[in-house]
């Protein structure tokens, strides 16, 4: 019997497990968090008694279905919650669970590692009280906490309106929703967005609900900075009509959409290509998620597509794996899933255009702005290093010389901005400045993790 391992307990991982179980396999499902559901459908801690129906809104039904599916699967898979995969080498996963290092060998691997927030440096973005958009949602769902009492939602992301609405429903006061994309850019992307009218309608509904609640929505704004002495006190923006505005608040949820978590895919041997629309290096996969020998990628970790695409691509990856084991798969079902994934990912590409990553903002950043939070490296230090004689012009070399991307997050958060800064300073296309390379550990691991293991 082959050892089939799935990493990630979100919609993609759960659906992949379900297809494998139906085929008579007993996969190992490794999940970093204690609760399944991924980031979007994460189950709140039971003690919180949160009203999931209200919090999930129109997605409450899907949330329930996914958790029921997992409940039915749980005894038929080898489920390993609270287990971080920090390295992959020669078909062995290196894990950390309850502070102890372990290993899981595999014959075939499905990575459903999801996505994380994509952020752009901004003066003041390292002040206490600034959270990423996804982080703000996780805090609400995981811990039942609000990030502040008077909150500005800032950036450019479909999550912007959803997160603001979730906070509004949870009793937070929303100072403003500041969308950095002009309405015209959203109109221009309507053709792609029409690929998923239901999702489009949902987005418009969130916006309307916020409007009805009397929450100010500022479109096409340019963020100037987050200010405060030792905590957030306000956000300075120039609105779409060129007026400077200061919005007092005590917390900011900030973000520019999502980026796939591809570190494990890289360690497992996936190859990468540059994607013009997301302006990110994404793993190369075929229509069914094959990324290499016995390696399959599904969900937002392969390409941003949202929860529905994650489910469908998880099922596809599992079918592909079974097919590669020599088991014939139902072709009409595969065709339907491929179509579904393609349609939803096309919609997300439309969203990526509508909620654009702020390339111009990177170029306009002041030298004093911190680019790398972990190592406190400023934009000016990066630019000066590049402009020095024999200065680096490739992101890994810029990292080596400046320390940008060398800290705890290993470039997961500053990486996309670093690419823009290097590209802008060298005046070369972004795909020519390279991609930050990854080595294990993909997340920090404590020394004592090794103590229990025999050498």
């Amino acid at each position, binding site marked *: 019997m082959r050892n089939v391992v799935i990493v990630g307990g979100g919609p993609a991982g759960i659906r992949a497990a379900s297809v494998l179980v139906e085929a008579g396999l007993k996969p190992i499902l490794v999940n970093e968090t204690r609760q399944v559901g991924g980031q979007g459908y994460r189950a709140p801690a039971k003690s919180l008694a949160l009203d999931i129906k209200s919090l999930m809104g129109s997605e409450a039904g899907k949330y329930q279905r996914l958790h029921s599916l997992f409940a039915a699967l749980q005894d038929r898979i080898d489920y390993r919650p609270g287990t971080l995969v920090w390295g992959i080498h020669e078909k062995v996963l290196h894990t950390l669970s309850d502070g102890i290092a372990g290993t899981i060998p595999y014959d075939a691997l499905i990575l459903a590692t999801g996505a994380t927030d994509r952020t752009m440096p901004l003066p003041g973005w390292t002040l206490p009280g600034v959270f990423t958009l996804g982080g703000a949602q996780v805090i609400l769902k995981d811990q039942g906490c609000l990030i502040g009492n008077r909150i500005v939602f800032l950036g450019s992301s479909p999550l912007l309106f959803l997160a603001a609405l979730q906070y509004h429903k949870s009793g937070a006061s929303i100072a403003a929703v500041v969308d950095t994309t002009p309405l015209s850019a959203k109109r221009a992307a309507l053709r792609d967005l029409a690929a998923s009218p239901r999702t489009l309608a949902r987005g418009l509904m969130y916006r309307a609900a916020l409007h009805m609640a009397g929450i100010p929505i500022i479109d096409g704004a340019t963020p100037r900075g987050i200010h405060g002495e030792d905590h957030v006190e306000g956000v300075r923006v120039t609105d779409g009509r060129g007026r400077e505005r200061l919005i007092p608040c005590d917390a900011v949820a900030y973000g520019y959409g999502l980026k796939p978590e591809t570190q494990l895919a890289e360690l497992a041997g996936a190859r990468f290509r540059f994607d013009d629309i997301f302006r990110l290096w994404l793993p190369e996969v075929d229509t069914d998620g094959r990324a290499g020998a016995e390696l399959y990628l599904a969900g937002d970790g392969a390409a941003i597509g949202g929860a529905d695409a994650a489910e469908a691509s998880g099922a596809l990856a599992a079918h592909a794996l079974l097919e590669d084991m020599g088991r014939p798969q139902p072709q009409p079902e595969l065709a339907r899933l491929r179509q579904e994934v393609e349609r939803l990912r096309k919609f997300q590409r439309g969203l990526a255009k509508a909620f654009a990553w702020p390339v111009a903002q990177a170029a306009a950043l002041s030298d004093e702005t911190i680019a790398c939070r972990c190592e406190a490296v400023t934009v000016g230090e990066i630019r000066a290093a590049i402009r020095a004689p024999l200065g680096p012009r490739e992101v890994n070399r810029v990292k080596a010389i400046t320390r940008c991307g060398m800290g705890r997050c290993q470039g997961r958060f500053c990486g996309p901005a670093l690419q823009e800064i290097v590209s802008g300073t060298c005046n070369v296309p972004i795909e020519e400045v390279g991609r930050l390379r990854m080595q294990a550990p993909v997340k920090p691991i404590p020394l004592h*993790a090794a*103590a229990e293991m025999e*050498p």
Partner: protein
Amino acid sequence: MTTKTRVVVVGGGLIGTWTALLLVKRGLDVILIEKGIVGAQSSGVNFGNLRLQGRHPGQYPLSLRSQALWENIEELIGDRCEFEKTGHLYVAKNDAEHEKLEQHARVAESHGLVIERIGRNELRRRWSWVGEEPQSATYSARDATANPRLVSVAVARAAQHLGAEIAENTRVTEVLRSGEGFTVKTANGRTIGCDAVVNAAGAWALEVAEAFGETAPMFAAGPPQFVTEPLAYRITPSVQAVDGSVIARQIPRGNVIFAGYPRTASDPVLNRAPVPPVKTLNGMRSLMKIAPFLKSAQVIRVWSGIEGYLPDMLPVIGKSETTPGLFHAFGFCGHGFQVGPGVAAVLVDLIVDGKTETPIDLFSINRFKNEVLVSDKLAKEFDAPAASGSRAG
């Protein structure tokens, strides 16, 4: 069109850049040719130790000459590159290891180095973070550290400022004898005429040597290295277990950098030096024995590099045996950082004066004509079977 210069240096690592700098300081025209980026290979990713304790006995005159250059680095290149006289603490866990420390100390002292013998109680009194396992230690205050990521680039920049040409992203395709000198051709179409060639191409140096009918049994490997998140600054000297299990140093900004044997395989063709996770775990376990207070410290990053190794664990330094005007300096077996500037000074002696006062016969490429003594370090410092990794280019 042929460019004329006195010396072409092949390889923009620590040796190559220091050689270019010291040559240009002596008034010679130099072109340094680097296939990639200056200081990006083993010179840029090594541990950064300027260790004088425990070196090969025959290497002390060279090492001490080199340390004098390191101690003067700010004056020489206008950049300190995080050079710190941190001292080096060598620890032993039993009598056999203690005896080894004593042997090392006597050799070092015979070359004028000051070595302090540290007993168990004093060890813990002076360095309160030391764990239960170390029983004795020796301490050398003159040993130091510097930041390898910065040094080669800074030295190249200083050489460039003084008039040396630094040609990055330039691959040497041919080195030909031409009259009394050489013609060097590059992949981007340059032809350079020169009187002397320095082969400082690291793990790739055999390409040049073999073009002139000599070789060495070099293979590529790398030092697995790990770093923790920043912590309160406590470990001031660099500290090393004499059994080779771990070496560590903390930089003033707080990160603890550590490394340990066995070394990792690396691939000079694909330019890859992955660190297998099991090595990270071994390093973590060994560090906890020396400094248990770090048990909750988080490891955030690992790396390795591509270094050239030779079976007797000694480098090749000196004149070519076949070709006047050709000079080799490669195969530093993982200990080139400390000796680098000294090696460059020796090469400049040989090029400018035709001779050097620093004894280097031990490092002649000629020694590989006969069977060389295989160092016992080969079994200890590499995964078995030793030296079976990829042959360096």
